[in-house]
C-alpha cells in the first residue's frame, strides 16, 4: 500500500457522517462574503451598497495574480460593505448581501461550455481564474496560479487528492460518491491542459466504497487512463508532499513546488469545481461542508451557499447536543478554532466541527522527556522536540539549522506528545518572528 514515512493514526470519527448523503441547504436571508477567502492578496469589491446582484455574479475582483474572484451565491441586494469577523478571528472587509430568495442566475462564465478539448490551456486556466477557484481542501491556494506553471515545467502527473486524512471530515468522501462525474470531468480537463493521458486519484483505504465507485467511473473513460491509487490510512496522507511521494515515489526537495517534481495536485472538490466552471460556467458559490463533532445533535454533510453563517448551518441541521466549548473550521488536526458562530462559510470550509467541554480539554504542558515519539511521527523528518525548545528561547539560528520552514504544521508531533507540549504553536510563532526579522533586514 502506498504511503509515506512517519505520521500518526488519530481516531477517524468519520462514521457519524460517512454514510450521510449530501443534503442541499437553502441559503439564509443574509450572506457574508469576506474579501479574503484565499491565500494571496484580498479581493477588491466591485459592487456598491444598494446594487442588485445575481446568483453567480462577481462581487469582488482578484486583487492581484495570487488572489481570487468572489461571486455572490444568491440573488439579492448588497446591504453593506463593512468589517465583520472572518473565521480566522480577524475583523475584515466583507460584502453583505440580502437574499431575495429568487436565485436569479447570472449568465455563465465567459467562454465556458462546449467541448473543452477545443479550448487552449490558457483559455481553460482563464475560466478557472474567472470562477474564483481555490484549493477547496482548506489551503485555499488560488488554483489558476497552481495551473500556470513556468514554461520549463514538465508536468507528467495530475494527482487528485481524495485522501481526506483529517478526522471527522467526510465532504470529499461524499463528493466522490455523489459527484463522481464532475470529478472525472475535472481530472480530464486537467489532463487536457497538460496534454497527458494518465491521471491519478489518491484515496485512503478507509473509504473502500469511494475507491470502488471511483474505479468503476474511471473504467468508463475509454480514451484516457485514470488510475485510482489506494493509500494507507494514515495522517497526514493528504499533505501535498506526502501524497506526491505516496503516488509517484518522488520526494519534493525542500523549498520546491509540486511542478518542480512534475506534479499538479488538486483536492477532490477543487477538481469538481474546475469541471463545473469549464463545462457549466458556474463559479464557486457552493461547497460541501461536513458538520460534525460531539456537540452536534445530528452530524451531516451539507451543500451550502458560501456566505452562510456557521450558526445558520448548525441551527438548520438540529443544533447542538451539549454545551459547546470549541468550534473548528476544518478538521481537528489543522483546522482553526473560530471565535463565534456568526462567521461565514468560506471557500476553504471543508467542515465545521463542534466539540464539547470534554473533548476540548486543555491539558497542562510538562517537560519534554525526550521520548522521541515526535521525531518518529514527523512526516517531514524534522526534530520537533528541538524545534519546540529552540522556539521557546527565540534561538533563530538553531531554528533555521533545524529547517523550521520545512515544517508543514500537520500537528503529528503535538498529537503523540506524552508531555502535551504545543510544538506547532511554538513553531508557527517562531516562523512569524523569522519572517518579521527577514522583513526588517530587507528594510
Amino acid at each position, binding site marked *: 500500500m502506498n504511503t509515506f514515512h512517519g505520521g500518526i493514526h*488519530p*481516531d477517524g470519527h468519520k462514521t457519524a457522517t460517512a454514510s450521510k448523503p449530501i443534503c442541499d441547504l437553502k441559503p439564509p436571508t443574509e450572506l457574508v462574503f469576506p474579501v479574503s477567502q484565499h491565500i494571496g492578496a484580498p479581493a477588491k469589491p466591485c459592487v456598491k451598497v444598494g446594487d442588485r446582484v445575481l446568483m453567480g455574479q462577481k462581487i469582488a475582483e482578484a486583487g492581484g495574480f495570487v488572489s481570487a474572484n468572489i461571486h455572490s451565491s444568491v440573488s439579492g441586494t448588497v446591504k453593506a460593505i463593512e468589517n465583520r469577523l472572518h473565521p480566522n*478571528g480577524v475583523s475584515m472587509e466583507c460584502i453583505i448581501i440580502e437574499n431575495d430568495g429568487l436565485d436569479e442566475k447570472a449568465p455563465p462564465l465567459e467562454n465556458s461550455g462546449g467541448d473543452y478539448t477545443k479550448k487552449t490551456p490558457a483559455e481553460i486556466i482563464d475560466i478557472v481564474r474567472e470562477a474564483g477557484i481555490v484549493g477547496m481542501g482548506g489551503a485555499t491556494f488560488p488554483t489558476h496560479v497552481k495551473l500556470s506553471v513556468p514554461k520549463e515545467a514538465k508536468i507528467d502527473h495530475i494527482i487528485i487528492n481524495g485522501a481526506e486524512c483529517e*478526522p471527522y471530515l467526510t465532504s470529499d468522501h461524499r463528493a466522490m460518491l455523489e459527484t463522481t462525474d464532475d470529478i472525472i470531468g475535472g481530472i480530464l480537463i486537467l489532463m487536457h491542459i497538460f496534454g497527458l493521458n494518465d491521471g491519478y486519484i489518491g484515496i485512503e483505504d478507509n473509504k473502500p466504497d469511494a475507491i470502488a465507485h471511483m474505479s468503476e467511473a474511471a473504467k468508463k473513460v475509454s480514451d484516457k487512463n485514470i488510475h485510482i491509487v489506494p493509500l494507507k490510512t494514515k495522517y497526514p496522507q493528504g499533505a501535498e*508532499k506526502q501524497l506526491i511521494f505516496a503516488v509517484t515515489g518522488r*520526494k*519534493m*526537495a*525542500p523549498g*520546491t513546488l509540486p511542478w518542480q517534481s512534475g506534479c499538479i495536485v488538486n483536492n477532490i472538490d477543487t477538481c469538481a469545481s474546475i469541471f463545473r466552471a469549464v463545462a457549466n460556467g458556474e463559479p464557486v458559490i457552493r461547497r460541501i461542508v461536513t458538520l460534525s463533532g460531539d*456537540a452536534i445533535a445530528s452530524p451531516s454533510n451539507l451543500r451550502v451557499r458560501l456566505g452562510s453563517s456557521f450558526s445558520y448551518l448548525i441551527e438548520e441541521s438540529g443544533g*447542538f447536543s451539549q*454545551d*459547546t*466549548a*470549541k*468550534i*473548528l473550521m476544518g478538521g*481537528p*488536526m*489543522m*483546522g*482553526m*478554532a*473560530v*471565535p*463565534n458562530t456568526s462567521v461565514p462559510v468560506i471557500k476553504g470550509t471543508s467542515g465545521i*466541527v463542534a*466539540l464539547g467541554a470534554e*473533548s*476540548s480539554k*486543555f*491539558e497542562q504542558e*510538562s*517537560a*519534554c*522527556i*525526550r*521520548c*522521541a*515519539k515526535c*521525531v*518518529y511521527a514527523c*512526516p*517531514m*523528518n*524534522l*526534530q520537533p*522536540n528541538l524545534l519546540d525548545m529552540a522556539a521557546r528561547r527565540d534561538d533563530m539560528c538553531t531554528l533555521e539549522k*533545524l*529547517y523550521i520552514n*520545512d515544517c508543514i504544521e500537520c*500537528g503529528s508531533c*503535538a*498529537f*503523540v*506528545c*506524552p508531555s502535551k507540549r504545543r510544538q*506547532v*504553536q511554538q513553531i508557527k510563532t517562531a516562523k512569524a518572528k523569522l519572517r518579521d526579522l527577514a522583513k526588517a533586514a530587507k528594510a
Partner: protein
Amino acid sequence: MNDKLIVSHSPHTAGNESISRIMLDVIIALVPALIAGCIIFGMRALIVTLTCVLSCTISEYIWCRLLKKPNSTHDLSAVVTGMLLAFNVPASLPLWMAVIGSVFAIIVVKQFFGGIGHNFANPALAARAFLLASWALAMTTWYTPGTLLPLFGSPDAVSSATPLAAYASGNTNYSYLTLFLGNHGGCIGETSSLALLIGGAYLLIRKVIRLRVPLIYIATVALGTWMFAGHNGFGSGDWLYQILSGGLMLGAIFMATDYTTTPTTPNGQIVFALGCGIITVLIRVWGGYPEGVSYSILLMNIATPLIEKLTAPKRFGYVKPKKEASAQ
C-alpha cells in the same frame, strides 16, 4: 451554548499518551523481574525494592516542596527510578545504603539538573555507581539463592561468585537454563533473563521502546564476546553464556532505552546501542571487573548530546548538495 468559545492553536485533538501512562507501563514491565527476584533471593528483595521506591518518591516530593515546585511524584518516574536502582543492587544490601542511593539518584542525578527530562545520566545507574564506589564490599557480596536473608537486619551469610566472575576465572559450570531462569547470585532484578524478556516484550507491544536498541546492544555483546571472551583464542567465546549473565538484559531492555539519557534520533539510537555493546565487551573481556553494562551505559549517556547532534535525521526530500549544484 456557551457565549465564549475556546480559541486555541491546532491540533485540537491529542493521543492518550501521557508520562504517567508510559511510566506505569515500565513499572508493569518490571514486575516479572521483581517476582523472579523475590523467588530467587527471598522476600528481602521486595523489602529492598520497596525501600528504594519509597525513598525515591519521598525525595522527589521533599525536593518539590522545598523548591515550591508543583508536586511531580504523580508522573511515577521516581517509582521507576527506585525499582531500577533496587534491581541493580544485591538483595543483601543494608537498607540504609539503599536509602542513600535513592536520595542520590533523585536529588543529585535528577533534580540538580532540572528534574524529569533534564538529567544527563541514568539516575538509577549513576546511583549504583555511587554505591559501588562507596560501599564496594556490600555491593559485590552475592548470596547463593536460597540463603535465608533477614528481612530488615544486616545479613551474615556465605557469598558466592556471579556467573560472570566465574566465567572470568575459567569456570562455567552454570547451565544455560540456570542462567536463563536466573537462579544464581547477582543483583535483584538482573538475574532472570526470562522475566526481563517478558517485560521487554510488553514494552515493545505497548510501543514504549523500539526493538533496535536492545537488539543491537545484545547482538554486539554476543558478537564481541564470541570473538574475544574465549579461553581458547579468537572465536571461542561462549556468547550465549555472556548475554544471559550479568546486567545485560536489564541494561539493554530498561536502561539503554531510557528516554531522557539516550539519543532521540533513530540513527543516534543505533550508534548508542553499538557503543554500549562495544564498551561492555571491552570491560568484560579486558577490564579488571567482570561486569560492564552499567558503566557502558553511563559512558554512552555522556556521549548522547554529541551523538544526537551528529545523527540528525535527513529532512524529507533532502538532496546531496553536490547534485543540487550540478542541477543548477
